[in-house]
């Protein structure tokens, strides 16, 4: 469907994208994830045509669109702040792209009624001004506006970043539902790893103008390809070689203690040693109660560890008490 090969972008002497290669499949929800300034938005804007790459090729369905004008690409876009035209009504905003394409008035009305129904915008909301809508409604208008012209691809540039936490979760679900309903190929940009993990079919993790890993959410989380990915996605413990050796880790159980070793918080167990697990004692220094789970801060001979325990309802470990921490050496990520 979309193919980026060897894309390089320079802004003056700054190399924003070094050499990007990726492929997005038909109907896929593909996320570009990374910290600020990593090149994810530059990649998206290269696909939509707002940025001309210094080198490389952008292809859609085998056609080279690298230098095709923006308005001829047939790629819908939802902007970070939605970019809804403030002087137009909701209806006029959605109709804008159709009017540009000189679609007849009757057809515009039919298409808008249809898309409004799909994104769950009430008919009375169509006559409203943009400023009269809530954040969630604005997002739906932005999506409707991007989809009404039947683009082959839709690009979303951090559309949830300006919203409060609760609305963000709600709209995230709506967004996924809409994407499933329309079955449209989607490229989504975010710096929020949770958003990327929950929404995406596949994720490309960006760092300093490069792609570090492309994979399914479970792949990038469980089998992070690089140290950067493993640190960027989710919370993690970095384990020192002293700690690993004292717990019994060695080459026989697959751990190279000379490497940088990491383990996810939920892969450490408290007072629950299973077969083949390595273990050591630790003192509870602190805990944070989250309701669904409890996050403990432990100290094992100077090694600080974070552990997440599901809240089963049993009493919490008290501060100062000694516990046994165990882990499966197979779960250690080594770089």
């Amino acid at each position, binding site marked *: 469907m979309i193919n980026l090969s060897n894309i390089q972008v320079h802004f003056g002497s700054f190399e924003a994208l070094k050499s990007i290669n990726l492929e997005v499949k038909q109907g896929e929800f593909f996320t570009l994830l990374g910290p600020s300034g990593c090149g994810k938005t530059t990649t998206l804007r290269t696909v939509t045509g707002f940025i001309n790459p210094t080198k490389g090729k952008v292809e859609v369905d085998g056609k080279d669109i690298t230098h*095709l004008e*923006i*308005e001829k690409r047939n790629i*819908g*876009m939802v902007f970070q702040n939605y*970019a809804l035209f403030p002087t137009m009504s909701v209806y006029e905003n959605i109709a804008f792209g159709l009017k540009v394409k000189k679609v007849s008035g009757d057809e515009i009305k039919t298409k808008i009624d249809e898309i409004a129904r799909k994104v769950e915008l009430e008919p009375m909301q169509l006559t409203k001004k943009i400023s009269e809508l809530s954040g969630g409604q604005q997002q739906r208008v932005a999506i409707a506006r991007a989809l009404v012209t039947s683009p082959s691809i839709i690009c979303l540039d951090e559309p949830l970043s300006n919203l409060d936490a609760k609305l963000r979760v709600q709209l995230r679900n709506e967004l996924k539902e809409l994407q499933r309903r329309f079955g449209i190929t989607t490229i989504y940009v975010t710096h929020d790893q949770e958003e990327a993990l929950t929404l995406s079919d596949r994720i490309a993790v960006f760092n300093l103008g490069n792609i570090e890993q492309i994979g399914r959410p479970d792949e990038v989380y469980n089998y992070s390809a690089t140290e950067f990915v493993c640190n960027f996605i989710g919370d993690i413990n970095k384990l020192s070689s002293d700690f690993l050796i004292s717990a019994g880790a060695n080459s026989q159980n697959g751990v190279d203690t000379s490497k940088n070793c990491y383990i996810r918080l939920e892969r450490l167990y408290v007072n629950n040693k299973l077969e083949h697990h390595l273990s050591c004692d630790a003192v509870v220094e602190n805990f944070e109660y989250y309701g669904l789970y409890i996050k403990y801060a432990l100290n094992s001979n100077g090694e600080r560890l974070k552990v997440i325990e599901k809240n089963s309802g049993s009493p919490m470990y008290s501060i100062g008490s000694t516990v046994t921490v165990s882990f499966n050496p197979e779960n250690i990520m080594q770089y």
Partner: protein
Amino acid sequence: MFLSQKTIKPMRKSKVILGLIYLGLLWFIAAVLIAPNINSILFVFWQDGDFTMRAVDRMFGSQRAINSLRNSFILAPILSLTVGFIGISLVMITEYFDIKGAKILRLGYMTTLVYGGIILVSGYRFLYGSNGFFTNFFASIFPNFDTGWFEGFWAVLFVMTFATTGNHMIFLRNAMRAVDYQTIEAARNMGANQFTILRRIVLPVLTPSLLAVTTFTFLTGLGATSAPLLVGGPNFQTITPMMLSFSRMAGSRDLAALMGLFLGGASIILIIILAQLEKRGHYLSISKVKTTLVKHKIRNPIANFFVHLYAYVLFVIYVAPIVSVILFSFTDAPTIARRQLSLSSFTLQNYILVFSNSRSYQPIITSVMFSLMAAAGVAILILVVCRIITKYKNKISSIVEYTFMIPWLLPNVLIAIGLIYTFNLPRWFMFNRVLTGTMTIMVLGYLIIRIPFTLRITRAAFFSLDNTLEDAAKNLGAKTMYTFFRVILPILLPSVLAIFALNFNGLLTEFDMSVFLYHPLHMPLGVQIQNLTMADVAQGDNTAITFVYAVLMMVVSSVVLYVVYGRGSRLNE
């Protein structure tokens, strides 16, 4: 490659249009903004094909010229201080302190926005002049009172101080309203008293705006025209009236141009200093949630009383001329001459006189037409310029950006002199047309002097535009022109209309430039008012007509402001 012939053709077409726009702008820059000013320099230093210092020698040999230069350089700094003091007071009274009747006071202080320039000066002259309302009142109390007191430096300073606080009421007031109240609360929470809060929290935020308006005031003081002409008397004439006088004498025109260059040089130095000061930094609020300013109660009752008294005395000073002008415009000539109102003296005769005599109403039509054309012209021109400098980053757009600043650096009179002395001959770059003495040069002059203000505000509006809107329109398939007219222009329209209204109002009674450029058969209102005011104070008819003009202009200005701002705010909703 995927580019079809269909996609290439529109690209070429848009490039041709852009090329033509560039060509037009470059012509305007060369012929209108640069050539006349270079010509002014040549006019002074290049005569009969040789370099000459004759004008310089003559200027330093002329006591009148030296006096006027000295007077301008005395007036400008002192005016900056007095206007600064009064201007800050007005902003404090209307926005910072809790003063009873602040809304009414604000209206009074803002009257100079619809009632300024030469009309305002004639209003002050009516009240304080030799036969003025207050002069007669003081003379009745103190028999030895000098009835000619309102003349010279102090009269000019007084009139100009109250006439030029308009910028403070717009820009400084806006800056004050932008102060984040949470910073004040934080300071109070840390134990700061009212004075410390004012000095350390509020005033630093106002500093950039204060610097900008003070520079404007300084330049206004340097280029003072109508106030010294009407109330300066023989002993206090400044550069511009002297230039006007020299420019009317055939043998002294080089002297007029040289004084203009002097004024221009001083302005440029001042603007460079301001730019350096501005670089030291703006204070932008970084609050996540900004709260609006809550007015401060003055806790000390004595201080509170005196601040209230001061506020209302200022109010009377601002409102007295406007009220008397409106009232006396409805009275007969003898009443105006006596300055004594009675019910029986009210009449509509003055209005009938103005509207029944073409010589009286012609200046109104002339000024309205010239102002309309210039205000619309400059709005469109600067819209194009701003679009180019914000959208296209290339050498030509940089040239356009910087050269359009030229009128900001030069005083209006120098521009006027440059235009007169350049276009009094057929010039190939003006298609061999002589413009001096025509109506075109008036509109051109009006347009040029409104460029700096229009450029500043329009540019700010362009920069505050959300770039993603244009990206969104493009993404939805819209071409550049379609995007501009359907998306960008509707958003900018309230600002453009507001600028149009302010330019139109500012030009209606324009005097400083008109007096150099006007066509004898199409005398603009400013010049007409000056002629009537200067003719003879005792002539009640003249004063009455001036007052009718003043009232009509206030009505027109107010209607324009209401229509535009009303419409603008609806568009903004």
